[in-house]
């Protein structure tokens, strides 16, 4: 019996998606630019869908890209579904995602050891002069990689005058940033040819390590290049099994915090969460921009972005352009967790009760307001995780104009997935494929923008939720023919008071 109802519950979403493809197909046909009944025009929808299918699922790389695209959709789809189970529309997944991403980035880059500290340097004057004049290859490469304003600050250094501590601090900070940049190649055979390195050190450098080993190596190379200039120091990193969960937790907390506002406003003041969450999305854009301009900005680049996240906080990812990372598995785990929470715990039960009928739930003793807030907090946490995973798994930092349109996409995912964890997982992969496929199709099929995927999405939303009801209209009480009404007959009604029963 259970499997039969599960199959039945797949019916409407399945047909909804089919209908959406048909509508989109008709749209492609009508806008093909060719005469309407020519073979080219009639074939075009099929060409487009074939290209999209190939782009989405045809080949390992495509499949991995699709799963990578599905990852944030799965998180945010779960977020929307959890809130919707409590009867709340969370359209704010986008803002919660941004706050979560920013928070995760901050924890990721803040807990990192400084590679070069001012008090490491035994002879600051010699150090600054060395960098300013760059007499050897090592100093030259370091100087070249400095941020331009720092470099001009350095060029005005005069050893005769008393040392400016802020100059030293800036140069050290810039140098630290350079030496922990994962794309910066400090060691090069020729560059370090004339530097006396111990055999183990040279061997280790030749193996070209990555991650924290590379940063550690850079520090030792620096010390070796200028013996006596730096007090030897071994860098201590926060271990990954602490740093990464911490960063993810920060992401979840950031999102939850952002969702708390609409939740509490709904519970206390009855404010319609649709409007509040939409507002919070826009405020999030401005808030993150503001934070990116000043406190959280990477000071050694012109772009508005945070410093790079420490390697100890990065999620494993495939470095082949597909953006696939361990985030996908985290999303699956989240789906399992949501299923468990909603179906197997008292909290989930109460949340669903609130969604099915708040007044009845209240009569049964469920703390309705508190459960609404709980649902929003969970929802925000999931969306925040989506942002954290984007930062820690793909980009390695947070920057302006981070996500785009994800808030509404997640609604489509949640609705097509019938608000349950497994459906949403399938739905997220489907929409991820749609998005990925459309992008690939745009490259190959002429004159067909990827926005066709959005049209499919919109029709899906409508088709999933629509129930055609052949309804007889309730009767309108017949009234005697009215005498000529004049405006005086209508007294101004104070809105709301009269009509309420």
């Amino acid at each position, binding site marked *: 019996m259970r499997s039969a109802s599960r199959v039945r519950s797949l019916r409407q979403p399945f047909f909804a998606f089919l209908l959406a493809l048909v509508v989109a197909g008709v749209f492609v046909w009508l806008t093909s630019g060719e005469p309407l009944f020519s073979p080219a025009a009639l074939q075009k929808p099929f060409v487009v869908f074939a290209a999209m299918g190939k782009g989405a699922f045809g080949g390992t790389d495509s499949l991995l890209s699709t799963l990578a695209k599905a990852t944030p959709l799965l998180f945010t789809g779960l977020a929307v579904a959890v809130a919707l189970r409590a009867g709340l529309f969370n359209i704010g997944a986008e803002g919660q995602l941004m706050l979560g991403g920013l928070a995760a980035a901050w924890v990721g880059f803040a807990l990192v050891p400084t590679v070069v500290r001012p008090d490491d340097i035994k002879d600051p004057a010699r150090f600054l002069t060395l960098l300013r004049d760059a007499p050897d290859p090592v100093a030259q490469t370091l100087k070249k990689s400095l941020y331009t304003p720092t470099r001009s600050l350095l060029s005005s250094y005069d050893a005769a005058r008393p040392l400016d501590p802020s100059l030293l601090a800036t140069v050290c900070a810039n140098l630290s940033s350079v030496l922990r940049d994962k794309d910066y190649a400090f060691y090069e055979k020729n560059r370090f040819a004339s530097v006396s390195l111990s055999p183990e050190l040279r061997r280790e450098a030749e193996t070209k390590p990555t991650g924290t080993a590379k940063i550690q190596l850079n520090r030792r190379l620096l010390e070796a290049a200028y013996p006596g200039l730096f007090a030897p120091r071994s860098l201590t990193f926060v271990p990954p099994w602490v740093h990464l969960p911490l960063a993810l937790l920060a992401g979840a907390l950031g999102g939850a915090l952002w969702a708390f506002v609409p939740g509490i406003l709904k519970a206390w003041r009855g404010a319609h969460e649709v409007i509040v969450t939409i*507002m919070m999305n*826009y405020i999030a854009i401005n808030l993150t921009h503001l934070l990116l301009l000043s406190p959280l900005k990477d000071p050694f680049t012109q772009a508005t972005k945070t410093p790079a996240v420490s390697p100890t906080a990065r999620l494993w990812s495939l470095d082949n352009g597909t953006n696939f990372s361990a985030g996908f598995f985290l999303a699956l785990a989240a789906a399992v967790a949501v299923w468990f929470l909603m179906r197997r715990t008292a909290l989930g039960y109460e949340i669903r009760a609130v969604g099915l009928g708040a007044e009845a739930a209240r009569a049964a003793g469920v703390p309705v307001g508190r459960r609404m807030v709980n649902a929003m907090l969970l929802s925000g946490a999931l969306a925040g995780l989506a942002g954290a995973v984007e930062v820690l798994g793909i980009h390695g930092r947070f920057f302006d104009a981070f996500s785009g349109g994800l808030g509404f996409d997640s609604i489509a995912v949640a609705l097509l997935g019938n608000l349950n964890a497994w459906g949403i997982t399938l739905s997220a992969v489907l929409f991820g494929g749609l998005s990925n496929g459309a992008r690939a199709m745009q490259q190959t099929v002429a004159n067909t923008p990827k926005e066709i995927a*959005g*049209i499919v999405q919109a029709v899906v939303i409508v088709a999933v*939720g629509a129930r055609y*009801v052949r309804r007889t209209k309730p009767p*309108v009480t017949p009234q005697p023919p009215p005498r000529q009404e004049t405006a005086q007959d209508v007294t101004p009604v104070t809105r*709301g008071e009269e009509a309420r029963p």
Partner: protein
Amino acid sequence: MSGGGGVVLLPFFVSALRQATPLVLAGLGGILSERVGVVNIALEGIMLIGAFVGICAGQAAGLGAGLGAALVSGLLIGLLHLMLVSRFRLNHVISGVAINILALQGTTYLLHVLYDHAEPVRTPVVPQTLPIGLFIGAAILLPFVFHFLLYRTAVGLRLRAVGESPESARMAGIDPSRLRLLGVTLSGLLAALAGSYLSLSQNNRFSENMVSGRGFIALAAVICGRWTPLGMAGTALAFGFFDSLQYGLQGTVNVPTDFLQALPYVCTILAAMLLRPVPPAALGREEA
């Protein structure tokens, strides 16, 4: 920018009217729809569609035709929203979301297909624009007109009754579905009017996502203005003022820009928190 006094702020007031006009027009649409009990968060999408249709038709057959076509398109989309909500029992919010997605993706798609990638390449511009005074005048007058219509005429009373309690309205001989039809299609028309202002008057072109959130700010104005035409218009004017202030300050200090940009949204949340604005009682309710 130094010095002081109202004189310095005068150009901001003028600019505020220009910025507030689409908000007021769309806001009136929002009020009409919500007053008959239909949540309409698709204002943004309808504005975008109106802007696009306006440019397309305006290029083909002149500015008048452009405006007319835009209004018709708004009317039709409003009708679509109503149909989805009443005939297909679709949740009001979901319907609005779907229309918004369709509007953005659809207009971007058509922009590329009909213009950017057409052969030969065309640009979605019109050589002349509709006089901006027309729209600003409408934005100033219509709130008073609708205030009168809503509160001092029989039609307005019936409209409001439907939004407060359709069952009572039915018992009093009022047909809610007819009034919903009136309210929601007019809502679409006004939103499309606001959109056509953007593409045919304030600017002379259509660009991708050119409404950029104004539909939601209009919704914010409706809420802060407590679903009354005059309250909404006043709020919209204030939002327009801060919007133009933000443009003026751009380039000088960076921090206020972000604050001013976020102001309408923060205001709405504060209003929701402090004022407890009460929507029409039957808003969003499924038909009895």
